[in-house]
Every structure is written in C-alpha cells, then in structure tokens.
C-alpha cells in the first residue's frame, strides 16, 4: 500500500496537483473491496475447513444440482486469485500514470483547460460510479464464493449432494447492488475539476438590455437515416428467412436509430435544449447556470466520439449526428457537451451573452457563487452526465 501512496503523491505533486491525481483516500477506497472480499472468503474457508470435503461442488445447474467439481485447495486459490486479480486491475487503473493516454485529436492547441485528455482520465478512474462498480463486483463475487463454501459444508462431505438453488443468483446480485451503493457512499461526492479556463475569451452576441433572443435550428444525420432505414428493411427482408425471430430487434433498432437521426437544438434564456425535430419531448436541457462557456468547433464523429448518435466519453458527451461544425459547451462541472449543428457560432455567442446576463442578475441578488452551486445541484436531476 505504501508503494501505491508514493506513486500517488508523486503523481499529484506537480504544479497543478488538484487536477492531476486522485486523493489518497479515494485510491484506498477504490481498491479496498477486493482485499476485504478475499479476506472474508479466506475466513469462511478457515471456519468451515473441518466440514469441507476434499472435492467441492463448484458449478451448479439451474435446478440447483451440482455439475462441476474442483479440489478444495484449487477452489480457494481460484476464488482468492480472482478477487485479488480484480483488485490489482482496479488498483492499476486508479494509479496508472496518465501520460500516453492522450489522443492527438482530443488535444487541440489552446485546449489545455478542456476536459478531455489527462485530467478527465484521472477523474474517470476515481469517479464515484467507477468505485461503485468495483464494490458491486467484489460484493457479488465474495457472496458467490462464500455461498459455495457453505453449500458444500451443508452437504456434509458428500459433494455431489451439494445444492445451490437458482435464487441465490438473485441474492448475489442483490449483495452486489448493496455493495455498489456502499461504495458509492464511501467514494463521496465527485470533486469537480477546478476551472482553470478564463471566461470571456469566446465571442458574445451584442444584445440590448431589454432585448430577448432565442436561437433554434434542426440537424439531421444522413448516416443514421440510412442505417435506420437499412435496419427496418433488413428486418422485413430477413423475417421470412429467420422465422421472424430477428424481426422485433431489427425493427426496434431501426426505429431507435431513426428517432435519433434528427434533432432540434434551441439556445435561449432557459439554456440549451435538445429535442426531437417535431416533438417537444423527450428533451434534454442544460440550464444556463450549468454552462460556463460556449464555443463552436469541428467534430469528427469516429475520431472524437467513436461513432454517431448520443455519445458518452470520459469528460465529454453529446449528440454527434454528423461531422463538421458543432456547438461545444464547457459545463460548470468541467465537462464538455457537444451538439453537431450548423451556425453553431451564433448559438455559442448567444449562450455566452445569456450566461453573462444571468450571472450578473444572480450576482445582484444572492451572489454568483451561490447561484452556480444551485445550478449544479439542479443539473443532477435532469442533465446529461458524461462519464456516468
């Protein structure tokens, strides 16, 4: 453990320590569940050692009967090995040096304060959700291993008679979920990236004090229209050949792709709103209070986001329907939200002006910092969270 701390300290001890490395506490919290689960399995084995046969039933059919067997020592080795291997993987992911993970496309000139690249990767690996997954996994595996030991002990040395009913799977999942929630609690609140960027660099749209403005535009994805139609057509053609079993999947997939193939993007006094082109719902809205700054940039779907549609990447997310011009928001959380849409520069300028205006209004009443914190709290209810 001490070695790990050393790495973390060196890692985080640079000039911009706050955004480089996860805190020591977080690292410990992140890798702790696996050694703990391994210790629990080892204790259970120690307690039951006298009642366990030399060969254990280790695999069970749906009806609860055993159909796979391993030596007791082998089982213990596999169980502990699996848990510790997972612990090592999680530990490495949390502690791995971030250099070399940069991707050229993500690091644009002057983009050092954006959320892609190094800080985002470091954040992802200590994000609460990531830690929760580790706890869930450790809890689930630990429960299954311990349960298997008890099932064998209950059979009283007659290993083929050991039973593990199917509902134990549900119990294991339940334990995993509870452990995951515990992990999420232990992880605490995700600390937002300190905002190193200077606001004010992006263009503004001159707007008189009494003026109200809104911007709206639709965008559609040729790739997704073609794909959606191809899926629908494929479903209808493949139907007779496959006995219609593949049809519902293809049709649903096709409709889903088509539903996301067009969007209306609106920037106004409410913030940024993304809806289907013809319907007001479902909608995604990012309120002004969550927006730090807006800008327009070029997006390459495959290179930047790994595909088309609603994309989530470490530190950024958004609707990527085509390549080219996109509206890019730097959020108060430090993440980036992107929508590919034409005339994005106008939308960005308008949003910047509106953010200025709402901040000035808040500053007059309750103080800007408070206002921003409130906005952040709102955001968790209805907004996108890129790295979830």
């Amino acid at each position, binding site marked *: 453990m001490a070695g790990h701390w050393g790495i973390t300290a060196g890692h985080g001890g640079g000039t911009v320590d706050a955004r480089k490395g996860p805190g020591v506490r977080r690292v410990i919290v992140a890798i702790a569940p696996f050694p703990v689960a391994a210790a629990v399995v080892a204790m259970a084995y120690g307690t039951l050692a006298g009642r366990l046969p030399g060969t254990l039933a280790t695999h069970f059919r749906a009806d609860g009967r055993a159909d796979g067997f391993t030596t007791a020592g082998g089982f213990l080795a596999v169980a502990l090995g699996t848990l510790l291997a997972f612990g090592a993987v999680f530990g490495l992911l949390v502690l791995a040096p971030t250099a070399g993970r940069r991707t050229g496309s993500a690091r644009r000139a002057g983009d050092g304060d954006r959320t892609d690249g190094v800080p985002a990767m470091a954040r992802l690996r200590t994000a609460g959700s990531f830690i929760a997954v580790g706890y869930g996994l450790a809890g689930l595996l630990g429960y299954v291993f311990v349960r298997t030991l008890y099932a064998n002990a209950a059979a009283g040395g007659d290993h083929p008679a050991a039973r593990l009913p199917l509902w134990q799977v549900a119990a294991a999942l339940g334990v995993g979920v509870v452990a995951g929630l515990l992990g999420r609690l232990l992880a605490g609140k995700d600390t937002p990236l300190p905002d190193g960027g200077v606001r004010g660099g992006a263009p503004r*749209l001159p*707007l*008189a004090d*009494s*003026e*109200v*403005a*809104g*911007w*709206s*535009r*639709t965008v559609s994805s040729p790739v997704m229209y073609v794909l959606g139609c191809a899926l629908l057509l494929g479903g209808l053609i493949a139907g007779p050949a496959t006995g219609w079993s593949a049809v519902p999947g293809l049709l649903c997939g096709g409709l889903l792709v088509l539903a996301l193939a067009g969007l*209306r993007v*609106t920037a*106004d*006094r*409410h913030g940024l709103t993304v809806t289907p*082109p*013809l319907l*007001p719902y479902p909608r995604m809205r990012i309120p002004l209070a969550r927006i730090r700054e807006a800008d327009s940039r070029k997006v390459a779907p495959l290179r930047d986001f790994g595909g088309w549609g609603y994309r989530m990447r470490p530190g950024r997310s958004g609707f990527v329907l085509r390549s080219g011009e996109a509206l890019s928001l730097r959020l108060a959380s430090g993440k980036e939200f992107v929508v590919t849409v034409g*005339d994005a520069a*106008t939308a960005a300028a*308008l949003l910047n002006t509106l953010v200025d205006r709402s901040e000035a209004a808040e500053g007059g009443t309750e103080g800007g910092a408070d206002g921003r914190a409130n906005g952040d709290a709102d955001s968790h209810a209805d907004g996108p969270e890129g790295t979830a």
Partner: protein
Amino acid sequence: MLVRIDPASSVPLGDQVAASVRGAIADGSVGAGERLPAARALAASLGVNVHTVLRGYQRLKEEGLIELRRGRGAVVTGAASPARARLTDAAAGLIEQARALGLTDEEIVSLVRTGLDRPLGTG
C-alpha cells in the same frame, strides 16, 4: 435561426418576430424547405404569448415567405429566396419612411403605383 425581440420597442412583437425570420432568410441562414420552430416552442423561448408568434408567422405567410400547414408547422417556401426577403424588408423600409413623412396609406400605394406606371428605364 436567431430571433431577437425587444419588448421595450414600439414595434409590435409579432412584427419583430417576422422581421427576425425575414432577416434569417435574407442572410441565408435559413433556407427553402427548412422548418421553423413550432410557435409554442418559440413563444416559450422568448417568453411571449403563442399568439404573438403566430401573428408573426401569419405575416410571413402573407408575404409568401413561409407556408403554415396543420401538423407540419411553419416551413420556409421554395419561393422564399434571400433576395425576396430583402425586397420585403425594403418595402417595409419604404412604408416606414413614407409614414415618417406623414403620408397616408393611400398616398404610399399611389406613390408605388406611379413608380410602376412609369416605363422602365426612365426612373
């Protein structure tokens, strides 16, 4: 498409909405066949009454710049070219100037008619 209105201005809000859309068509940021935001959505965006936006849309329809269809919303017509939108704007400018000079509506129409009656090239 950017729509900006100024509630403090003496120009009716519906006309301001129409002017914004016309301007967007004139500068080419909205093209033929493009769908305008639903009146309800635009009204919510700007914080004005739906009927205000509908008045603006109605005006654009009368100018031949958009089509209003039930269930399909407002669509920019094929006839709506940037030049056409600019012409409509110029007409609005003419009317505004004439009114500022105290001309009545009839006098403005007759002014235009006089211009039309004059043979080409003599203006």
